[in-house]
């Protein structure tokens, strides 16, 4: 099937304004008749729930944490982009759009990226009004810093806490609506199934994580803002609870999963220290404003104290290879370069899987106090984990899975191929193409939540009669039964291996075979191994406790079971995409200098997969990408 994103036509500058005008409106008096479900309360879900509640809709919001304030958006450190051009350094909406399309290696939809760039400015204003304490200068004006993939300073920030501050802004707006009664908040609930009646999304089935009760919730529209899936690699920068479960439950009900192979491996994370490790910690990309990345030129220097490696013997490889962007080259490129240096035997630290991020020169130029003021909390975090002082000795960093550019397929209105199912933020695939630039995830989450869905959902709701399906419909009962059956299945296997052991096993396969560099051989191997692990899981997993109690083993079992299915789809997508682009690097497809070699003639499309069961091949649907404003070009940061 050829998919249609239903993007507006005509001049790009007018596209969103025209579309908003063309959308039908829901009469204010009718809004309260509509129920909307929001799954996830991070930047996208929190902002959307607050905005929709304020418009007058009845919103039910769900999160698996104990409070909506804890979604993993909170961990974003560096900043949020906007095309304000406050520093007058040549920024504009068009330039932000251009950088984002190019950063994504020409695999995103133009109209969506234009809209994102246009509303980026509104986001900053909105957050300021909420009391988000952005960094300011002494005169009181908003301050900016630079991020990867851009030659302008357009990143707004709040110390190394930008995600926290933006999320708490959205949480405060959400709290106001909860108090007002327009949003009903359900915490410690995990969505386990999407309920589809006659082809239309009508509600969800959730597990109350405290009592174990399986609950049915009906609505006129269901929004998923349930985040990304890179915990499929087991070790990642995501929170432990991040999973593909909500998205995968929708995929199993027919929602297409787009570009799952576009995963972002972030270049600046603290290297793994041991087998027992449960997660990896990111060090903000903003550090690369002042930190210089290097490895020794000679292998024999790798074991030395970094201070003993002479300046002439250091390879500042990003500055060498990409002189115009230097240490601020985009993430996919920086990560691959780090891997190449380590594969070349020039990595540092335990196992040789690390490169230096060095602040010596910046401290000399600016003083240690200035560096502390800019990144103090990040140095503190680094020291807690590694017991090393980043001011005195270069930090050691290594790439780690961080973000999912892929996600459920949505049209321009953020609606999936299932009518009534909307997908927001990291959970959808829409704007980042094959690689996301730094400080763009926060921008997308809040754009979708504050400024897109409040308009586009109305265009759908006017076409449906409110409350036409209730949660006593047979499809809801069937969904509850299905969830209970699966829960009992987990509890009754009583095998020999823990859920975590299976998750680690899957993660290793994904990281080694479907990680930073992928080949036909490694992917084929993964496609052989993943079903074996899955089969073993269903025979040999050990999940204790009961289904009617708080049971973290059971929660994790469901998440890992879904990763074991989804990981295969991700691998399949990577195998089918015979090109390198952004975060998807196929070793067979590279330019003579080792850069990604795209194949625009054959792969300039969104690959949206229809899942048909574990024993059947998924079906690929394509949405061709058109570039009318930004011309297709080889991406160069040299």
């Amino acid at each position, binding site marked *: 099937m050829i998919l249609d994103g239903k993007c507006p036509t005509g001049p790009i500058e007018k596209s969103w304004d025209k579309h908003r005008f063309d959308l039908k409106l829901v009469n204010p008096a009718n809004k309260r008749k509509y129920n909307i479900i929001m799954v996830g309360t991070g930047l996208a879900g929190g902002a959307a729930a607050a905005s929709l509640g304020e418009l007058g809709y009845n919103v039910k919001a769900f999160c698996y944490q104990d409070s909506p304030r804890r979604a993993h958006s909170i961990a974003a450190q560096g900043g949020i982009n906007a095309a304000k051009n406050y520093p007058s350094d040549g920024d504009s909406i068009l330039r932000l759009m251009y950088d984002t399309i190019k950063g994504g290696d020409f695999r995103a939809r133009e109209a969506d990226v234009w809209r994102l760039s246009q509303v980026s400015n509104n986001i900053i204003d909105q957050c300021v009004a909420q009391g988000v304490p952005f960094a300011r200068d002494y005169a009181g004006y908003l301050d900016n810093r630079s991020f990867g993939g851009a030659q302008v300073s357009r990143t707004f920030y709040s110390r190394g806490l930008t995600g926290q501050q933006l999320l708490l802004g959205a949480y405060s707006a959400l709290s106001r609506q909860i108090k007002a009664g327009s949003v009903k908040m359900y915490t410690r609930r995990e969505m386990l199934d999407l309920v589809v009646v006659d082809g239309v999304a009508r509600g969800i089935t959730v597990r109350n994580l405290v009592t174990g009760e399986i609950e049915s919730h009906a609505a006129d529209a269901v929004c998923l803002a349930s985040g990304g899936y890179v915990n499929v690699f087991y070790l990642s920068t995501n929170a432990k609870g991040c999973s593909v479960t909500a998205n995968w439950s929708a995929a199993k009900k027919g929602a297409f999963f787009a570009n799952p192979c576009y995963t972002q491996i972030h270049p600046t994370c603290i290297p793994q220290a041991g087998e027992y490790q*449960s997660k990896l910690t990111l060090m903000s990309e903003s550090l690369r404003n002042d930190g210089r990345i290097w490895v020794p030129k000679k292998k024999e220097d790798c074991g030395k104290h970094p201070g003993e490696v002479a300046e002439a013997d250091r390879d500042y490889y990003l500055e060498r290879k990409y002189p115009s962007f230097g240490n601020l080259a985009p993430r996919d490129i920086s990560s691959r370069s780090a891997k190449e240096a380590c594969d070349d035997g020039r990595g540092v630290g335990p196992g040789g899987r690390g490169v230096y991020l060095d602040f010596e020169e910046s401290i000399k130029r600016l003083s240690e106090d200035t560096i502390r003021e800019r990144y103090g909390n990040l140095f503190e975090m680094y020291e807690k984990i590694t017991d090393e002082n980043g001011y005195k000795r270069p930090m050691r960093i290594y790439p780690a899975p961080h973000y999912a550019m892929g996600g459920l397929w949505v049209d321009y209105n953020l609606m999936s191929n299932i009518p009534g199912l909307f997908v927001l933020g990291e959970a959808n695939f829409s704007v980042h193409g094959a690689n996301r630039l730094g400080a763009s995830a926060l921008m997308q989450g809040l754009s979708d939540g504050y400024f897109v869905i409040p308009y586009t959902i109305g265009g759908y709701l006017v076409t449906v009669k409110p409350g036409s399906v209730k949660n006593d419909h047979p499809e809801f009962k069937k969904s509850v039964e299905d969830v209970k059956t699966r829960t009992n299945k987990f509890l009754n296997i009583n095998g020999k291996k823990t859920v975590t052991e299976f998750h680690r096993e899957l993660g290793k396969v994904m990281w080694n075979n479907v990680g930073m560099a992928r080949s036909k051989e490694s992917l084929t191997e993964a496609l052989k191994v993943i079903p074996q692990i899955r089969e073993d899981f269903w025979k040999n997993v050990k999940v204790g406790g009961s289904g009617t109690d708080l049971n973290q083993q059971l929660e994790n079992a469901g998440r890992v079971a879904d990763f074991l299915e989804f990981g295969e789809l991700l691998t399949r997508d990577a195998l089918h995409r015979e090109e390198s682009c952004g975060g998807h690097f196929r070793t067979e497809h590279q330019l003579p200098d080792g850069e990604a070699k795209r194949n625009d003639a054959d792969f300039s499309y969104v690959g949206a997969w229809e899942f048909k069961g574990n024993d059947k091949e998924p079906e690929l649907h394509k949405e061709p990408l058109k570039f009318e404003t930004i011309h297709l070009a080889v991406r160069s940061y040299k």
Partner: protein
Amino acid sequence: MSDHKTMTLTLIVWRQKNASDPGKFETYTAKNITEHHSFLEMLDCVNEDLIHAGKEPIVFDHDCREGICGMCSQVINGAPHGGQDRTTVCQLHMRKFKDGDTIYIEPWRARAFPIIKDLIVDRAALDTIIQAGGYTSCHTGGVPDGNAILIPKPIAEEATDAAECIGCGACVAGCPNGAAMLFTGAKVSQLALLPQGRAEAVARVKNMTNAMIECGFGNCSNHYECMAACPKGVNVKFIARMNREFIKAQFA
């Protein structure tokens, strides 16, 4: 860098089936722990052993494991988050302990935080306080340009100091009165310092204070235990600021 010595530790952990169960301490052994394990990874290892042995693992709240989500909440050897400066449980590393140590692990204990199971407590009361007024009542859209409101750097920085609160509740757990004054004071102060928050300052401090009392939190009697427990170093001066705001509000 590191040697590969491992530690064996004795854990004395609070186990409680549910809110109505009286609960009790149980003793466990953590083996093969290195200095690079985080505290939660050490507990993960103990739990893996318990699962293999067919016993119920210890449940505890955790999520981001990088010190920002505020989910983790354990009192370790009597100190919320383990008593290290500016450190959450998930950031605490085993290099702070030595081979043979005995470690006591308990949940947050406060009237307003009922225990759900083992080390997990219900902190919904903190959300209730924010819902009472921890926001500016701005609408989505229709707000002025970000630079239309000038906020000099020192004010922005002080507001950020208050806004660093991660809502974990360690201040409550550390306080002999089970007060949430540091939590509430931080939000009141953040918004009182900023021009955007001034318009509703009077109603905000009254409503949030009332919510705090209704939720069953105690009052401040200047022990400063909250500040010592706070993993983000939120300063007690924000309690003083809240008190000033509260007194001013009585005459507004």
